[in-house]
């Protein structure tokens, strides 16, 4: 029963991961990260239900809060970058290198 949830979670995680790796648009990358976080949330909730305790549920809430905070800062950065560079592509933001 829980296996299905876990498989779905893994699937969402992989989709998100591949999205992060292959997409250039920062917004999409960002959404993929959200997808991965939510995949994790799903796994946490599933395990919580399976084990019959609340630990996983609590962690899911923490993840959501962290994700929300991250969205705020991340979007702010993306907007700033877009303002200066007229692009939202992550490959254009490569000044911080060797």
């Amino acid at each position, binding site marked *: 029963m829980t296996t299905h949830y876990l498989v779905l979670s893994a699937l969402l995680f992989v989709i998100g*991961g591949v999205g*992060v*790796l*292959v997409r*250039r648009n920062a917004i999409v*990358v960002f959404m993929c990260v959200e997808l991965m976080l939510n995949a994790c949330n799903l796994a946490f909730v599933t395990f919580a239900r399976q084990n019959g305790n609340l630990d996983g549920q609590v962690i899911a809430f923490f993840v959501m809060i962290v994700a929300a905070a991250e969205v705020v800062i991340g979007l702010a950065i993306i907007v700033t970058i877009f303002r200066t560079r007229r692009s939202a592509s*992550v*490959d254009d*933001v*490569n*000044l*911080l*290198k*060797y």
Partner: protein
Amino acid sequence: MEPAKIIEHSGGVIGVSWLLIALPLLGAAFLLLGGRKTDKFGHLLGVATAVASFVVGVLVFLQLLGFDPAERRRAVPLYDFIPGLTKMGLLVDPLSISFVLLITGVGSLIHIYSIGYMAHDPNRRRFFAYLNLFVAAMLLLVLADNYIGLYVGWEGVGLASYLLIGFWQHKPSAATAAKKAFIVNRVGDFGLAIAIFTIFTAFNTVSFAGVMESGADPSQGTLTAIGLLLLLGACGKSAQLPLQSWLLDAMEGPTPVSALIHAATMVTAGVYLVTRSGAMFFPEGSTAAIAVTIVGVATLLAGAIIGTAKDDIKKALAGSTMSQIGYMMLAAGIGPAGYAFAIAHLITHGFFKADMFLGAGSVMHGMNDEVDMRKYGGLRKVMPITFATFLVGYLAIIGFPLLSGYFTKDGIIESAMEYSSTLGWLAVLGAGITGFYMSRLVFMTFFGKKRWEADAHPHESPAVMTWPLIILSVGSIFLGGFLIVGNRFMTFLGPAVGQPEHLPSFHPFSVPGLVTLALVAAGAALAWFKYGAAEVPVTAPRGSFLTTFARRDLYGDALNEALFMRPGQWLTRLAVFFDNRGIDGLVNGIAAGIGGTSGRLRRVQTGFVRSYALSIFIGAAILVGAWFVVGNL
């Protein structure tokens, strides 16, 4: 007879015999620190301390004479020098007091002479400071009651010699000669130092008394090693083969220095060392003692041969010094039968050689510092006192009957004959050559025609220079007979160094003695025909192979250059290269390697976020994979 026991002493003049060293040392310190302010009286102060030291020496000598002969070895403890290693103290005994009287006596005369000789030198004060320093160091050398104290004096005289050879250090040749003397001496000191280490390890003490009375019984090999190492030290200081090369160059120093240091006193320190250590490390017939005699004979011949070919008056005298010290070494190697003759010859040599060196200085003083004898000639008329005193010294050194050198050198030859006839006859041969080269020197300088440079106006030197000459020549006449006849000196020295069971009796007309006289006469005659009666060319003729051989100091310098200097320079260059490129290259190479690797590695930081993300994924995958693998094990 074995040397007498050493008794601790306090009180009397002997109790304050440290004054002997302290007086000239203070003089030197005062003159060096006082600076230009002491220029006016510096020379007088220098003379005063030397003379004062001589007076103390005489008083010490008189007190020593008051003791029973068997109680004439007095140790005067001073202070704890290096705790755990050695105390510093003085040993006043017949051997050291003989040296003290020679050093301070001849030293004072040379100090007085230098007032005149250095009168026009702007640095005369410094010269006297160095002379005082030398006297102090030399006295410490002969008075110290232990080998470390001796070593301090030993290197101290080396320093004084360095400073004085290089006194006119603005001349590159003088500076080089000074440095060479110091370095060659250091090679000898290397041997002396290791000898002292071995003595300390074997006897657990370095004091003469301690070594003599120590119950330790080191192996024969150890004793031989100590003896040979001491001999190496003696060779360095006394310019014996193979460390002879510095002495001829040392003649760059002012002439009083050559007289005091490089003829009368310092160069005889090797003989002192061998005699002082004789009973302990050079027992009769031991390997070390035989080595001493061989070195002595080889040097007495080498020095004589070099003396025959030199046109530089000081270098000819220097060759002669080498040769005479060879005689002393030969005698010192023979054992108790020879010690007294070695030291007696050392003392008379101190007189007549100082006499001749100062005479040579007087000649140079009158001849604008010309040293080439080919530009002298006929000086006996313009410098009568110098000539007369020089002549006395000359007759003494060639062994003219009844003069000092006759008694002492003959004693050496006689005892060498008894020891080994080969060595004895070689010593006789050396005496013959001495007769030739000394006569050559005298004829070229004082006889024949004038060959002076145009601007030379030779004149007799002032009284302050001639009086020391006169006193020295008096010594050159009578001292030898006084010491040798009736074995006076041998019985005096006996308690300090040991003496043979049967005292030798003096035979005026023994076979070797007559042969020696004949050879000397033949040498002198040959010199007369070549340099007295015949015309002496102003420029030196090319000469045969043998002449060149002698002129080039028997190729000693060439040998040193080929064996040590060139390979040394090459080694130095190699070492510097190796250090810069090899070791430092490795260090810098490692640094550069790390830098280069980092430079390449940082290229991984492309700045593309997605590649970072990929590496995070791969890393996470590897970790998870590893966890699975480890978990399933």
